[in-house]
């Protein structure tokens, strides 16, 4: 074997190394290392004379390897490898011994030890070199198109520069327009150029450039591949408007009733849910802002009505549209019924309650819409398109709300539907159990008829079980839905219940509703605390009796809705609480009196309500002529026989699967009160809708059990923006005077006026953004609105990527000492930019956002969060000094008698003409600069007290300001870290993208082919951002100037004989370069993807993977050498 001929070159690095390490001695002693045939030191080895010397020596001494003892290999390894190539030496026979970062710098005060350590480092590097093999770089092709992520000024600049050279550029921007933050600024320092004037032309140029493809409202979802050959998936967010048709006319925004905060105006102005960020937006297209989740009201509805939508349409006085959303689109006939008696889960969920304790009056709005239609059009309408006849037949038992809703939905799907009902008129419990003073029977009748108009068969007076056996229905039809309700009255099980004068409340209500007038005595008792009890009591009262409600717990535990209890009290119903009957006492078979016992409350029971406990010896006898029991009803299921194969529960209800409402008979479904026991109207309708879905899926031959949970009613986490609340409060519903109520059965609630209902609808704070009222559809001439357009993915192939995702400001909420965003007269600097800007919300007049007053004293707070590790930001944000100086100047120009006060720590004006600009603000505009950090702000009486100090005089300072402008720290854009990980880029502890070298490679990242431009690398001003962007474009173009690229050959290799295919390397590889062939069960390294990090080599349990020129043998030899003396 040939003897190695190794040269050692020791660099002084000026005094960086030579100041500590005795370089001459090192060079001398290196000559004694086995294999070393030459050694020399020089002051700057990386300089031209230094390099020439090395090059010459390689040739003259016929060296077959060199060790350069200098700085970190990340700095100059490449330099010396290039040099070796020129000298005819294989570049991979060059090794760097780092004696600067690892020796001279950390051992500044230990010169002797440092020199010894340096020698050890050189010795071990020589050992490594001895094991190095010669390699040749391999070539990979380059795709000549680029991706630029971020459409701010840096992204646009990079895109233009690359495209101008004739290459395709995909410019991906997250918001609906390119332009970025710069466009929001009023004017730019130090030239006072207006960004609209210098930026919009650039945007237009980008839009019109044949080589630039703007992908606005899009995000990079996935990046695979490697330098020169990236495959990128871009998620195109649906703007819900077909941009190929949108002509930017703004008709949609004009009709859109939903107000939201404008991002462009930093929340100081409103925009519509259908919007364009600003007039000069590029692309000039509109976007509809929808939340991924539905508004809480809409999500909560058991029949899934779009409450948000019809409330919104009502606020725009588009009543027909509003009603159409309920009837035609949601196929829900009962607008008028629900508007009267629904227990409105939508309102329970409404976020408006957080603003002023009352939800939006969704129920009343719905009633008003139904009444409006009857008033304006004479009758109710429901325009539901039915599908082609399916040839399938469904029978429904029970014409209550559940049966009718199921009928509508099944008919809509094209099935033939027949409803069987025991009563002579439809409506079920709505008709029988709810008195006319709560629900106008005419409204009910009209809305029931809407169902039959769809072609639903209706067989009244047909009691299944008596007139026709259930078995026959099951045989004759393809599916059966049982929604027979719960009519069987509960008994108390105490003596005397059989007496004349003791009867059920529901039975009484039923008789009344059938037009009979039962004769009652003077004194009537109603036992129970639910809605039926209240209805019974209020009905009995109207027949002229004195009515007492007897309930065993307190009012707090009553299941009846609060409004009903309140109305009953108002009308004169007496309440005897914590009392329960124990015996009905009769005379001659007729009720005479009732023995009751008084109760107290104990611990909560299974329902969570406190259990009533009888108080011993508190019995009492009370005189009553009639007693109505309204203590809960049960379904009468005597029509179901064992042969029907329908299982019942131990509680005497029908057993069903909760999510599908399937019974144990595969053809039969059931829901509503006969399944749950007495519940609400809307629950029954919801069950009908749910069952209809199951039946329809079954009839279509699909599996109806999949993904059914929460399909109709669910919880939404949206909370809305309370700032968007109108001041209107909830007005009470106009009602009949008590005196006008108690003698008749007229409806008590009269309904709102049009003016009031619009005001009520306007109280909505639009938690879900767009309400899908779809008024825009009708307004859009080119028919571009596409409410059901979904996000899509676009795949592009590029050779290089420029990341320019920019920054955002630290939110004021992170700074409680400055009010945490709660102070009205404290704003952030970007908001002040908008106030100064001609295109801003005040058209450039400086007015306080909260009250429109012109502020005469404005305090500017520098370094809010920046240079402040307590806030997590130790760095200087670099632009705040200059823009605050500019803002002070512009404020002075706008408000001549205004007084700007700038509280600063240091004024940093490190740019061309920046210091002069600062001096001008100081000298010509007389801004007051106070050197001191603001410690606290205190808002009171329309002013803000600024507490600070003047460190130049050592005095505390206190200033009463009209407005405070805070310059928050710049922090990376939301999602920047996620993007970085998709691109396999490193970020620093703050989230800024790490450059390859802070000085010499500040545009490159550590991932080949990915470059960084603008603030996403670190805060910088526009000038620097544009410079870096052009630099990045230059780097990209340099790549694109070649057809192929060289790749480092120092990558991992797999010894196929040893590899067991365990896959550990695949798991640890951060670049997805290592994969196990599923057939051969052997690992393979993708040469183009491998970055040579060595993670796989370290992890491989069988040592099959080795990293070229960093093999185990080499590393152990180095360790041995390093530890030789110990």
């Amino acid at each position, binding site marked *: 074997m040939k003897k190695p001929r190794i040269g050692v070159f020791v660099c002084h690095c000026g005094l960086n190394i030579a100041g500590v390490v005795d370089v001459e001695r090192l060079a001398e002693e290196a000559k004694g290392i086995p294999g070393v045939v030459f050694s020399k030191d020089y002051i700057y080895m990386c300089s031209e004379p230094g390099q020439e010397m090395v090059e010459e020596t390689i040739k003259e001494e016929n060296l077959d390897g060199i060790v350069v003892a200098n700085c970190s290999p990340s700095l100059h390894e490449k330099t010396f490898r290039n040099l070796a190539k020129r000298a005819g030496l294989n570049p991979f026979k060059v090794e760097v011994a780092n004696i600067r970062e690892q020796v001279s710098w950390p051992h500044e005060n230990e010169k002797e030890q440092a020199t010894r350590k340096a020698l050890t480092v050189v010795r071990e590097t020589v050992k490594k070199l001895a094991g190095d093999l010669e390699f040749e770089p391999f070539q990979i092709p380059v795709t000549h198109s680029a991706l630029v992520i971020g459409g701010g000024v840096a992204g646009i600049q990079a895109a233009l520069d690359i495209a101008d050279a004739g290459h395709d550029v995909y410019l991906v921007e997250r918001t609906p327009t390119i332009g970025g933050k710069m466009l929001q600024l009023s004017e730019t320092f130090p030239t006072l150029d207006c960004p609209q004037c210098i930026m919009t032309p650039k945007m237009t140029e980008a839009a019109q450039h044949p080589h630039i493809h703007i992908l606005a409202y899009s995000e990079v979802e996935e990046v695979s591949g490697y330098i020169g050959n990236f495959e990128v998936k871009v998620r195109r967010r649906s703007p819900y408007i077909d941009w190929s048709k949108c002509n930017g006319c703004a008709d949609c925004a004009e009709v859109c009733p939903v107000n939201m905060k404008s991002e462009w105006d930093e929340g100081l102005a409103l925009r519509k849910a259908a919007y364009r960020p600003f007039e000069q937006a590029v692309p000039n297209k509109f976007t509809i802002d929808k939340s991924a989740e539905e508004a809480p009201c809409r999500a909560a509805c058991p029949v899934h009505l779009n409450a948000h939508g019809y409330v919104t349409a009502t606020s725009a006085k588009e009543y027909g549209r509003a009603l159409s959303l309920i009837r035609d689109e949601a196929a829900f006939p009962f607008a008028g019924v629900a508007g009267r008696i629904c227990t409105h889960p939508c309102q329970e969920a409404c976020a408006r309650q957080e603003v002023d304790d009352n939800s939006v009056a969704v129920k009343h709005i719905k009633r008003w819409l139904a009444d409006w239609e009857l008033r304006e059009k004479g009758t109710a309408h429901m325009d539901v398109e039915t599908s082609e006849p399916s040839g399938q037949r469904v029978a429904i038992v029970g014409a209550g709300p559940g049966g009718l809703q199921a009928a509508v939905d099944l008919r809509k799907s094209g099935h033939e539907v027949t409803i069987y009902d025991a009563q002579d008129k439809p409506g079920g419990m709505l008709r029988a159990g709810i008195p006319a003073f709560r629900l106008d029977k005419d409204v009910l009748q009209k809305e029931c008829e809407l169902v039959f108009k769809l072609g639903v068969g209706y067989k009244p007076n047909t009691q299944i079980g008596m007139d026709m056996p259930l078995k026959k229905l099951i045989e004759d039809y393809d599916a059966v839905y049982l929604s027979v309700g719960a009519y069987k009255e509960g008994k108390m099980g105490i003596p005397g219940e059989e007496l004349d004068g003791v009867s059920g409340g529901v039975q009484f209500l039923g008789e009344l509703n059938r037009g009979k007038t039962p004769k009652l005595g003077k004194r009537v008792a109603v036992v129970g605390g639910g809605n039926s009890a209240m209805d019974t009591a209020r009905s009995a009262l109207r027949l002229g009796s004195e009515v007492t409600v007897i309930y065993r717990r307190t009012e707090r535990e009553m299941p009846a809705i609060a409004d009903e209890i309140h109305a009953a009290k108002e009308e004169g119903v007496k309440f005897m609480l914590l009392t329960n009957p124990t015996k009905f006492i009769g005379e001659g078979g007729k009720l005479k009196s009732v023995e009751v016992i008084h109760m107290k409350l104990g611990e909560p029971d299974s329902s969570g309500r406190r259990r009533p406990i009888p108080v011993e010896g508190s019995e009492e006898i009370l005189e009553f002529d009639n007693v109505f029991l309204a203590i809960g009803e049960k379904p009468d299921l005597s029509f179901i026989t064992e042969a029907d194969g329908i299982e019942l529960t131990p509680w005497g209800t029908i057993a069903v699967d909760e999510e599908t409402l399937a019974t144990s008979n595969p053809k039969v479904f059931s829901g509503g009160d006969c399944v749950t026991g007495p519940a609400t109207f809307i629950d029954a309708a919801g069950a009908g809708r749910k069952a209809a879905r199951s039946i329809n899926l079954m009839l279509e031959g699909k599996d109806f059990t999949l993904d059914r949970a929460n399909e109709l009613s669910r919880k939404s986490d949206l909370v809305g923006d309370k700032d968007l609340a109108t001041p209107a409060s909830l007005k009470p519903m106009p009602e009949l005077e008590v005196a006008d109520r108690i003698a008749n059965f007229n409806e008590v609630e009269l309904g709102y006026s049009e003016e009031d209902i619009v005001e009520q609808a306007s109280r909505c704070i639009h938690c879900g953004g767009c309400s899908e009222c779809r008024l825009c559809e009708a307004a859009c001439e080119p028919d571009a609105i596409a409410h059901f357009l979904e996000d899509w993915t676009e795949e592009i192939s590029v050779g290089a990527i420029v990341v320019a995702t920019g920054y955002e400001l630290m939110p004021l909420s992170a*700074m*409680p*000492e400055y009010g*945490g965003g709660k102070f009205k007269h404290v704003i952030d600097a970007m908001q002040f930019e908008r106030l100064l800007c001609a295109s801003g919300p005040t058209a450039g007049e400086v007015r306080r956002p909260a009250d429109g007053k012109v502020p005469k004293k404005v305090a500017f707070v520098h370094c809010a969060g920046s240079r402040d590790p*307590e806030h997590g930001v130790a760095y200087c944000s670099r632009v705040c000094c200059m823009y605050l100086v500019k803002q002070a100047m512009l404020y002075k120009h706008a408000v001549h008698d205004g007084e700007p006060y700038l509280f600063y720590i240091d004024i940093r004006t490190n740019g061309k003409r920046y210091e002069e600009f600062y001096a001008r603000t100081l000298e010509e505009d007389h801004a007051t600069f106070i050197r001191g950090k603001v410690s*606290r702000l*205190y*808002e*009171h009486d329309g002013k803000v*007290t600024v*507490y600070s100090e003047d460190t130049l005089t050592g005095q505390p300072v206190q200033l009463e300001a009209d407005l405070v402008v805070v310059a928050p720290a710049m922090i990376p854009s939301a999602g920047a870290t996620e993007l970085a990980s998709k691109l396999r880029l490193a970020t620093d502890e703050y989230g800024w993208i790490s450059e390859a070298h802070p000085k010499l490679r500040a545009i490159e990242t550590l991932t080949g082919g990915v470059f960084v431009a603008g603030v996403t690398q670190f805060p910088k001003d526009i000038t620097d951002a544009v410079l870096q962007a052009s630099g990045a474009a230059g780097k990209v173009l340099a790549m694109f100037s070649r057809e192929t690229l060289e790749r480092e050959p120092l990558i991992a290799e797999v010894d196929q004989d040893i590899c067991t295919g365990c896959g550990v390397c695949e798991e640890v590889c951060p670049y997805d370069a290592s994969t196990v062939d599923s057939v051969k069960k052997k690992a393979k390294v993708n040469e183009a993807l491998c970055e040579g990090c060595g993670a796989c080599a370290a992890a491989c349990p069988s040592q099959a993977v080795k990293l070229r020129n960093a093999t185990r043998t080499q590393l152990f030899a180095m360790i041995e050498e390093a530890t030789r003396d110990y």
Partner: protein
Amino acid sequence: MKKIAYYPGCTLKTTGKAFEQSAFAVTGALGIQMREIERWNCCGTVFSLATDDTMHHIATVRNMIRVEEMGEREVLTLCSMCYNTLKRANEFIASDPVRLSELNDFMYKEELKYSGKVKVRHLLELLRDDVGWDALKAKVTNPLEGVKVASYYGCALVRPAGAGVDSLEDPTVMEDLVSSLGAEPVNWPSRLECCGSYHTIGHKELIFERTERIVGQALNAGADAIVLSCPLCEFNIGARQHEVAEHVYAFKQIPVLYFTQLMGLAMGIEPGDLGITDERVLAWLSEKVET
């Protein structure tokens, strides 16, 4: 009845007796039994900031041993200063097993080695987190309607970050308490400022200046009274007010109460049982708060 170990500290047995008396009265009414730990010693008064100064935390650790001897895992404090010192010293020691064992070795005569697991809590935390404002509201028989109260946090209750009972810069616990009692919390600027602390010994004039400023701002904000949780603050901006009046022309005074005293008044407890004896305060009470 909930039981909790209670560490009084020296001031609560001397100048701050009213704080202790009123705290016993209100916690009793809320069903909390404060059990004073036996043989307690000074908290150490000021948390030592030197990172290698283990010795100066011995006072705290000894108190923690007393708590563990009672079989308790929590100790309640009233005085803000004691809370601050005990909490920080306890965490400083407990977070480092080496320091902890050093101190335990040093105190080899103690029967028990300190485990490092005792939690130091302030009564305000207990009221907010364990009792809850709704439960407190339910105990209010005499809502202090129309009474405007300035909450004074001082420095030790909320600083430094991590050791305080609430947000460092924008705490709300005392304002929430005041609202729960039916009174109206006022917005005022000095609630987080320092009262001058121990300068009260050597530089009284500095305390006068602080008190004038703090009291003045409370009055400017329309407050009828100041509530606080630190006996030293009370001494400086409460007890010293009549001295300030001698030095400062037209100085207006304001009643200063411990938060427990305000609670007691709202819960219908007699002023005498809350240690309210100051005639000025009593006169104010008869005018503002009907008990």
